[in-house]
């Protein structure tokens, strides 16, 4: 079974939010609140337990490559559909104490809703702020990578609905190569700040849902160097061990001292 991936390309996105809706319709995800944010056309604001695809709207005082807009100052409006990154080394998966979060045969990270008991540890272990607990349900939810659809040989709902193929679904290595070619092509066309967001250099080890973006990751609230929190374990446990030994020694000393007196 080959590993599958999402390539989401801001230069092809038209901000239609079909992905958000298709995901919710297929996965029966409840609405996330009828709240107007005033942040451009983004009333969803972030991924969460009841939002598994989130379209971002960036109004920036920059040019979009060679685009010619008749404005006084440079301007561009970028759209990008955010999703769970399905990390190669996933913080949520490592942290999950019940074993609810597993790696599927497609390489995706999947929360088994019949196992999750809502401990909330995955929530603080995700370096991208994706997974969250659903308040009126108690369990943790995130993008399933349409595990059920993939098992049936179908394409995930968001990729299926995306009219411009800004969201592409396919084999991991093929899409990685496509992303590289795409960025090269975009730069050649004049989009000098085209980049791939796929943090392969960090401890996350690369993600299975990666992006072609214009500009820096921070503008999209993508952490520039995300780490899987397990890298912190060694130093933390070492500190715990050393302190425990010292504490025990101190306790013994206290009693030894008072036994003497």
């Amino acid at each position: 079974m080959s590993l599958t991936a999402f390539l989401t390309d801001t230069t092809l996105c038209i901000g239609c939010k079909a992905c958000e809706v298709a995901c919710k319709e297929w996965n029966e995800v409840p609405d996330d609140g009828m709240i107007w944010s005033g942040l451009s056309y983004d009333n969803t604001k972030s991924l969460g337990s009841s939002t598994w695809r989130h379209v971002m709207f960036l109004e920036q005082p920059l040019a979009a490559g060679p685009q010619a807009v008749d404005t006084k100052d440079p301007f561009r409006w970028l759209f990008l559909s955010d999703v769970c990154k399905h990390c190669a080394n996933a913080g949520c998966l490592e942290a999950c104490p019940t074993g609810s979060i597993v790696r599927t045969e497609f390489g995706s990270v999947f929360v088994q809703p019949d196992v999750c008991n809502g401990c909330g540890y995955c929530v603080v272990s995700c370096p991208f702020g994706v997974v969250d607990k659903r308040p009126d349900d108690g369990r943790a939810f995130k993008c399933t990578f349409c595990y059920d659809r993939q098992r049936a040989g179908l394409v995930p709902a968001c990729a299926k609905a995306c009219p411009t193929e800004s969201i592409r679904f396919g084999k991991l290595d093929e899409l990685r190569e496509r992303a590289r070619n795409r960025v090269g092509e975009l730069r050649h066309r004049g989009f000098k700040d085209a980049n791939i967001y796929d943090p392969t250099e960090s401890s996350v080890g690369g993600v299975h849902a990666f992006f072609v973006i214009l500009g820096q990751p921070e503008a999209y609230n993508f952490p520039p160097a995300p780490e899987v929190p397990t890298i912190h374990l060694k130093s933390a446990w070492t500190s715990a061990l050393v302190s425990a030994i010292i504490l025990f020694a101190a306790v013994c000393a206290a009693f030894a001292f008072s036994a003497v007196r």
Partner: protein
Amino acid sequence: MAENHPVAFQWVMEAREKGAQVIHVDPRFTRTSAVANIWTPVRAGSDILLLGALVNYVLTTESDFREYIVHYTNAPVILREDFKDTEDLDGIFSGWDPEKKAYDPQTWIYEGVHSNIGDVPGSDKGPDGGHATHGVNAATDLNDYHVDPTLQHSRCVYQVLRRHYVRYTPEMVEKYCGVSKDAFLHLAKAYCEASGPDKTGAICYAVGWTQHSSGVQIIRTAAILQLLLGNIGRPGGGVMALRGHASIQGSTDIPTLFDILPGYLNMPKLGPASASLDKYIEVNKPETGWWNNFDKYIVSLLKAYYGDAATPQNEFGFHWLPRITGDHSHQGYLLEMMDGKMEGLFVMGQNPAVAGPNSGIERRALGKLKWLVVREMVESETAAFWYDSPEVHRGELLPEEIGTEVFLMPAAGHAEKEGTFTNTERLLQWREKAVDPPDDVRSENWFIYHLSRRLKEKAARDARSRNSGLRALTMDYPLEGKHQEPNAEAILQEINGWTVADRKLVSGFPALKADGSTACGCWIYSGVFPNPGENRANQRAPKDSYAHGWGFAWPSDRRIIYNRASARPDGKPWSERKKLVWWDDADKKWTGLDVPDFTATKAPDYKPPKGAKGDAALAGDKPFILHADGMGWIWVPVGLADGPLPAHYEPFESPVRNPMYPRTQSNPVALKKEREGTEYAASPDERFPFVLTTYRITEHHTAGGMSRTLSHLAELQPELFCEISVELAAKLGIQPGEWVTVATPRGEIEAHALVTPRIQALSIGGKIVHQVGLPFHWGYSGLVKGDIANDLVAISEEPNVRIMEAKGLLCNVKRGRRSPDDKIKDMRDSRMENRA
């Protein structure tokens, strides 16, 4: 297009990725603008100025596709000497009657052609406009024009066009449209470079153009541009209307418009012109061109309507057709309703309480009816007007005093019924029924069929002659299932048509006859169901890049109409790259990648004999077969109420005086329908200094009945907002997100301020003009609610198709919310107490 047709827009993206230039012009920077190669703003209402300047650019740079326009358009046609242009008469054309406020279009016709108008006793001088006037027999011999193929004659269309647009310069565009000269020239150059034998460009538009008092003329300017550049009838060219509803093309083909019958036949008007079928045909059937078959279509339609009761003796029941007696358009009957002259109304799949022009008047007018039937999937604002409208909340109307009996009938959704949609490509696509509708929910077919059946039953018992038409109507479709649903395929077959004697389906409209031996519900759809079991609308096997084999495009599955123009006069393609149809000299017929929109055996060098009629009267190099002269109309000789050429008029409410024609501020033929409660601002008006435009966004659909009632859509855009520029926000001290009140002479509404650089402050006529944008999707029903933008719109009528001007208005914007309803509720309560 990305906003409102995102799925279709994928093809634009694909084209862009292959190197096509996507040029977007819009008062706002939308999601389309974000991915376009070129974007310019435009002051809402200044479109003819911009497009006219593009026409002028093409002419002054001689970028026109010369061979195309000489052969295929009426550019070389010589006009009458007594024609006077807007340049001569400061904004009006010759033939203006200031008392009637209408034109006598005699002087607009070609030189040497004899005009019919006025010869038919009782017919008005000049058409009233309408959706199907290009076929009227306004001239017996429109085909008898004279030409100058060198385009030098001072009265040929080409030269008149030059003179007409000579003052539409890039400087004027910069000064009055808000597009910088450089941007304009960049755009013009890019577009001209994308046209010619090897390349084509397409123009796509939507209600940003149509909803103006000169809406038709705006589109005309685009059509002129496309004809000059040789972009009509060719792949990748054309003028595409992006319609605002999934099947609204179908709702003009098989019309819900008062002035046409299926297939764009004119609805008869009360008067001598419709006194008899022969008279009616005489007025509507030109001698030349394809519309010479008009009689076949009307008779076949009448046979479809009235079946055996339609005979040659009783003129096939022609007298049973209703007659137009006035303005029965939406605005027309709206005002009749307001004046208490209407008893009842059926509202099906429409929501005038939100979407109508001056929707406050709509809601008041509904309260004057005796009965109202609303067929809807949800309880729309129209159905709930009597207890939930702003007028009720403000105490201006009391439910106790509204005498309208409202019937809310549940309507089936698109997956609960079968039938076709016809989309903007003229494509009929069949929809299967996925589930039966629950409970009392029913389809339109069911409703109309069974209502008619009951009325027919009543009429059968009532012998008065006024019911004879009702008695004669044929409604014999097989009924199926527990609901007794009329079989939709049977209806489609009737639309396709058959020979009456044996009920054998016809293969297409060429088989239709005028002697009553054929019946056809809509001639342009004929061919969709040519054999039993062959529902071409339901075919799903595309076999080429034009998707023949997927659905059925009218007419006759021609995917690009007027495609004869994709070949040279000699029949060979203009280029290998842009070949579409061509003449096969071996087989002596037209062939190619599309179904030829041309008589298959008519040779390219065919010259019509003198006195030839119909299609035979058109030469082999005349692609526009629905025109009596076979040519693309750069100049419109007949059929439009407000001029043969588009001229820039300001919208009824404008921040500037008309810079092109100071004495003619706005379209002289368009109607203001002004009255108490629906006043207009002055132009300009200190009280209303900003330009207001209304529009749609991706997340919601029309009046919101199908989107604000679904949580997954409602949450995407839960509240009404208005888009204002950073400069305007600074000027008025408006903080991002806070409540603002937008006011016009018709009313005021409140919205959140979305402050954004996507709206630009424009310099117009030497002063800064701010534009304000409002999406129109909100109302008082549904999961998410908001004020109704169309409360701000005036009731106006474009002269040809009577559409209202919702895209260019004047408004004022203030910080803060409008008067709270509960404050006014107190007033209402005290009124109630006083009455008790």
